[in-house]
């Protein structure tokens, strides 16, 4: 029997629709939320269904709109603020970091600012330096913010429902554009769930290496794991998901079994998620590592536009497999590598299901 499949985009739409249907004080606010494209189809038709007072088109004014969301939250609304490119949220850093993140603490708990910011990582081909960035570590650095990177439709629906109905503070979710059209069986990783929808989760058990991955790199890690399973390498994969509050114990327990760590993030390794996971291990028990940790992310440059350069800028499946092989079997292990093919090409053509 064929299991039902669902795309990441459909899950996003469902999450937006449910937030409006189930919570009278929810508003969706951002550039393009009412237009015919509706944030890549995730808000399409919702303005007609719920009214333009609840699905609110905005001026090109990211800072004030983030501030409007803070003020609206302080007076009883639940705002969902969209950024069709994560890069645009940099204009709102003042409100997000100086105000939203601090409003509870700075006033000794007198206020709460429950809100959700949806940031789309615009990566596909040719998006260049200002339309493709993965900014999770900048936000996760700031106390007061909860930063998530859902990697499956199940995670989208559960996490957004949790944000709207249960979480009391500002949540920043980074969605990956390349995943929008991917269909997943059973919503994602089957029964592998965390303690709460925001928790990190173990999505594949294995004994040779612990791969801690974020967002679309979880999918890449799963592909690498499937490939290597045929060559006797057994990968454990952890979907980090909650960037700001990773499940440290889950990672350490895994490392106790595997002794090998590879961190695969969508962003730059330096000062980022990869660096942070290494810090956790180094500070807790570096003896857990039988081999030095390996990190995989973007090259240390701005994202180039030309495809020839972009393909070199992002890691591909072959590089990931190669890194895992070297970490688990050393050099010249005799395991063949998959063809070098950019992730973008693969996911553009890929029809799933996962």
């Amino acid at each position, binding site marked *: 029997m064929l299991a039902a499949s669902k795309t990441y985009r459909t899950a996003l739409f469902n999450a937006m629709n449910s937030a409006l249907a189930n919570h009278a*004080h929810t*508003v969706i606010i951002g550039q393009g939320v009412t237009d015919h494209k509706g944030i890549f189809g995730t808000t399409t038709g919702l303005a007609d269904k719920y009214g333009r*007072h*609840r699905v*609110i088109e*905005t*001026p090109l*004014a990211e*800072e*004030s*709109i*983030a*501030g*409007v*969301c*803070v*003020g*609206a*939250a*302080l*007076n*009883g*609304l639940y*705002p969902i603020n969209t950024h069709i490119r994560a890069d645009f949220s940099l204009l709102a850093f*003042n*409100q997000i970091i*100086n*105000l939203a993140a601090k*409003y*509870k*603490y*700075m*006033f*000794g*708990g*007198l*206020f709460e600012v429950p809100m959700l910011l949806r940031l789309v990582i615009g990566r596909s081909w040719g998006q260049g330096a200002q339309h493709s960035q993965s900014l999770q570590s900048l936000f996760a650095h700031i*106390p*007061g913010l*909860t930063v998530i990177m859902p990697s499956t439709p199940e995670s989208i629906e559960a996490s957004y429902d949790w944000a709207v109905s249960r979480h*009391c*503070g500002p949540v920043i979710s980074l969605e990956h554009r390349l995943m929008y059209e991917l269909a997943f069986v059973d919503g994602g990783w089957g029964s592998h769930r965390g303690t709460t929808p925001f928790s990190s989760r173990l999505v594949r058990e294995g004994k040779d290496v612990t791969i801690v991955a974020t967002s679309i790199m979880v999918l890449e890690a799963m592909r690498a794991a499937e490939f290597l399973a045929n060559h006797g390498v057994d990968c454990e994969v952890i979907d980090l998901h909650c960037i700001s509050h990773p499940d440290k114990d889950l990672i350490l327990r895994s490392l106790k079994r595997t002794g090998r760590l590879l961190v695969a993030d969508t962003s730059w390794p330096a000062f980022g998620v990869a660096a942070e996971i290494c810090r956790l291990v180094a500070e807790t028990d570096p003896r857990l590592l039988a081999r030095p940790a390996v990190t995989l992310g973007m090259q240390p440059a701005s994202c180039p536009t030309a495809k020839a350069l972009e393909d070199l800028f992002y890691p591909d499946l072959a590089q990931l497999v190669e890194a895992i092989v070297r970490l688990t079997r050393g050099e010249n292990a005799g395991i063949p590598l998959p063809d070098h093919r950019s992730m973008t090409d693969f996911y553009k053509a890929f029809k799933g299901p996962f």
Partner: protein
Amino acid sequence: MRLLGKGRAGSTPLKSRMLQDRDKLEMHGVVNATTRFESLFRECLRIRLVEEKIIELYPSDRIQSPVHLSIGQEAIAVGTCETLRRTDLIFATYRSHAFYLAKGGDLKRMFAELYGRVDGLAKGKAGSMHLAAPDVGMMGSSAVVGTNLPHAAGAALAARNRGTDQVMVCAFGDGATEQGVYHETLNFVSLMQLPVILLCENNGLAVHASQQERQSYNIAAHARCYGIETTVLDEGYDLMRVADTMGSLIGATRGDRKPRFIEIKTFRYKEHVGPGDDYDAGYRSRADLQAWQAHDALVQDRALAERLRPELEREIAAAVAFAEASPLPGRAELLSDVI
């Protein structure tokens, strides 16, 4: 508001005569005006005495927070808050002792906050720059200029969606009008027609820089470009005029749910931050101060001030004692209220 309590009526011939006089005067609106003035004056004096107490205490280092004093600007806060209801929300700045107190914030908890004590309104995490009292609609004060503007807009959006009759007030200085978010917010509140009063306290200074050094535009003319009804009041020292003007603007916005803008000229008596004067620094003269003080009721009406002072000083002394008796916050407070 009435200081002549009705319970006193008729007990002696003298009091009867006073009441008769008052009734006669009330018919002409005079006694009400007098008692209303005295009430507003008292609130202004209370704020000034609080800040003078801060100045007195400051050298002792018991107040462990930078202070931006409102002295000279009290009439704006008091005149605004007279009409605001408890459920109306005000978003203020780092120079907001006056707004906090005028909106009804607790004085004891304010002093405890300045002292960095656990009974402070924010358990010592806020200090002087982040006063708040949500139970009376004082929704916080930001130390980054202009950042509170969109908060008032957002709160007004929430009032619209939730169908409340609240009016929002955003207080900001002339410096805030130079920020990009200021333009964004004026555009937004006008576009959405939101019930916000944008209240510009124009003291002519951003830290030590004059308006002429900073602005290529006229604040009110610029605000009018957004189609927002705009008022300018030059006499920010005139308590009754401020209160009347703010009263009518707030009333109008409560009724028609439209944004309004008001620029009130005022005067910062003290240095930008800290308890002192800095008229010797060269960026303004003491003569400017004296010209303003010539209109300042708190300075001019000494008899009234002296009559009201003892009771206010007792209240302030009790608040200081409360702060001094409060324990210091510790590890439990350090990591609470983060998420």
